[in-house]
């Protein structure tokens, strides 16, 4: 008979092993799903996980695209993980991402067509501020009135989407766009364009910032008093209060930081890969980053790897549609399985399974 027994301490081995187990289980269950759809499961898994990295014909294109796709996911997830560690739940990164893009692009478009080196840095500041301010709304409401930051931040996503539509149709609409919605394309405005730093690598300022954020978060959490307070608050809130952590300051810091990073991600996306403010600019990075944060165990290095893995399933998933005619719903299901299995095998970190002989009555 099987019995679950709580471990005295979470297992360090399983903390690292469970994400790998989740990936393997996803491959197996996904393979069965693909087989039921009449596709060769081995081939499908190969197309999703192997081809984007190593296919001779197109991997030189899809490999850099991994960075483009993973950059915003990692940047947002790092910001979210700070709050999640302290038990502060910012679910509205999507909204902060939108606001960062609107403010940042707005700054850039305000200077159009001025050719100056300072345009892009000002846009970056604008993007960071936009995301930060949007996150300050749930933060201040929580500190002042004790509102639930999960609900407020989530609801503000929908407000942000309406604002985005309004901007695409009104204030930021391309005056030369014949009345069609959407802003000017920043790719045609070199001073504001977040180009690849080295052509053909996918590395743009946003990807670089994401990597810097990983290092920043690592140092903060492991070497800094503030990081210690964050961890302590999450693990033992009472102890944290006794040791003099100010919970309100922590809320402002964590929500502010995650908003700022989401805003930056939005700015780098709108000024780079996306190029323009449009009604459908946001594609769910802010929500997917929540999965990435947990898949990476809220650890900076884990998030880096999880972001890359998530990006791989996106790009591989597109290839599977293209090459094997798999429906996109099957790909989404596959991605969902990843989180599902992670949560399921997570049990092994805190519990161990024991085989117990049934005692005779």
């Amino acid at each position: 008979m099987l019995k679950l027994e709580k471990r005295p301490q979470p297992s360090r081995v399983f903390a690292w092993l469970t994400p790998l187990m989740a990936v393997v289980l996803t491959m197996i269950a996904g393979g069965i799903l693909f087989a039921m759809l009449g596709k060769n499961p081995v081939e499908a898994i190969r197309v999703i996980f192997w081809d984007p990295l190593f296919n001779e014909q197109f991997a030189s294109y899809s490999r850099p695209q991994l960075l483009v796709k993973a950059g915003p996911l990692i940047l947002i997830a790092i910001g979210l993980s700070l709050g999640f560690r302290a038990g502060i739940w910012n679910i509205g990164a999507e909204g902060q991402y939108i606001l960062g893009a609107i403010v940042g692009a707005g700054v850039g478009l305000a200077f159009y067509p001025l050719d100056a080196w300072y345009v892009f840095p000002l846009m970056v500041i604008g993007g960071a501020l936009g995301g930060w301010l949007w996150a300050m709304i749930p933060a201040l409401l929580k500190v002042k009135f004790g509102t639930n930051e999960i609900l407020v931040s989530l609801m503000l996503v929908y407000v942000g989407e309406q604002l985005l539509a309004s901007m695409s149709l009104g204030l930021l609409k391309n005056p030369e766009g014949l009345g069609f919605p959407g802003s000017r394309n920043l790719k045609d405005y070199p001073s504001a364009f977040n180009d690849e730093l080295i052509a053909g690598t996918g590395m743009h300022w946003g990807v670089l910032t994401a990597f810097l954020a990983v290092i920043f978060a690592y140092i903060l959490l492991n070497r800094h008093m503030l990081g210690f307070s964050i961890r302590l608050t999450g693990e033992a809130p009472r102890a944290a209060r006794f040791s003099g952590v100010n919970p309100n300051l922590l809320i402002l810091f964590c929500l502010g930081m995650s908003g700022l990073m989401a805003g930056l991600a939005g700015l780098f996306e709108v000024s780079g890969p996306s190029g323009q403010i449009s009604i459908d600019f946001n594609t769910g990075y802010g929500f997917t980053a929540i999965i990435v944060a947990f898949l990476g165990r809220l650890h900076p290095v884990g998030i880096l790897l999880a972001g890359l893995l998530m990006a791989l399933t996106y790009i591989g998933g597109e290839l599977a549609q293209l090459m094997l005619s798999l429906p996109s719903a099957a790909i989404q299901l596959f991605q969902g399985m990843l989180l599902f299995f992670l949560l399921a095998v997570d049990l092994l970190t805190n519990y161990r399974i024991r085989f117990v002989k049934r005692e005779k009555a």
Partner: protein
Amino acid sequence: MTITKLLAGAALALGLATSAVAQDKTKVGFVYVGPVGDGGWTYEHDQGRLAVEAHFGDKVETTYVENVPEGADAERVMTQMALQGANLIFTTSFGYMDPTINVAKKFPNVKFEHATGYKTAENVGVYSARFYEGRAIQGTIAGHMTQSNVIGYIASFPIPEVIRGINSAYIHAKKVNPDVQFKIVWAYTWFDPAKEADAAKVLIEQGADVILQHTDSKAPQAAAQAAGNVYTFGQASDMAEFSPMPRISSIIDNWAPYYIARTQAVMDGTWESDNTWDGIGPGMVGIGEITDVVPAEVKAEALALKDAIAKGEYHPFTGPLNKQDGSPWLADGETADDGTLAGMNFYVEGIEGEIPQ
């Protein structure tokens, strides 16, 4: 920067050259904004793709990717298609415009066809359908059918195509029923069954007994069916499973002839960038069966209008027409030019409310 860019361009071109060698089948790619099972917009484009396969058989190979977000993701999907040797790529949503142009620059030998946009290039053509012609017929039927004189309109995004449809439907509803009033809900989506159903319910509660939709799902049809005494029209696709009530007719997008013709052109090497805007006449816009719920004389009137439009005898935007603010737009007998229609951003006189900005 420029040198590395050149190198990257050369590398891409090299990859393209090797992939284009020894190809006997014409490869046609389709990029869809929704799922192929949406029953509306994307479904009809996919029907066009299947028609290309049926028509050319072994001579073509088609691929598609569905649910592609507009923006950076679309650019990547198109690039992947081109890298895998596509000869012709149809990008079937307005938001794919800039991505299509960007990718087309990198692959001068691949032909691109972008639906509903306005930017063309040497290897990028654009195509769209004159849906407003179908809206004129819808408006005529709706104006006759409404008892409450309130017609609900589920609009997607305030872009010229949608505004054209509202204006055309309103003008023709008003013509047969001077008391008619339009209530417009902006759903800000092309496909979201939950939102569309909500919009339909709100309109029905506000007294609308005819609902027109410019969104792609069947949810409004289902909502109307549940409400009982409400008429609807199929959008993009026939949606015949809701006839004879609530669906009393439909506008059908028929892309198949165009897709087959353009694929043929690529095979023959005669493809050239074009700007196609076809309506009922050439068959790009179809009018689904008008059911028996509609009185015979109304049906006859609608079909006569359809014939007149198809033959080019009648233009749905014929003066005298004023803009919403009362300023004159078209003089008596004058018809709207395509330029104005393409960028239409105003309501005609009589429509209440403002176009969201």
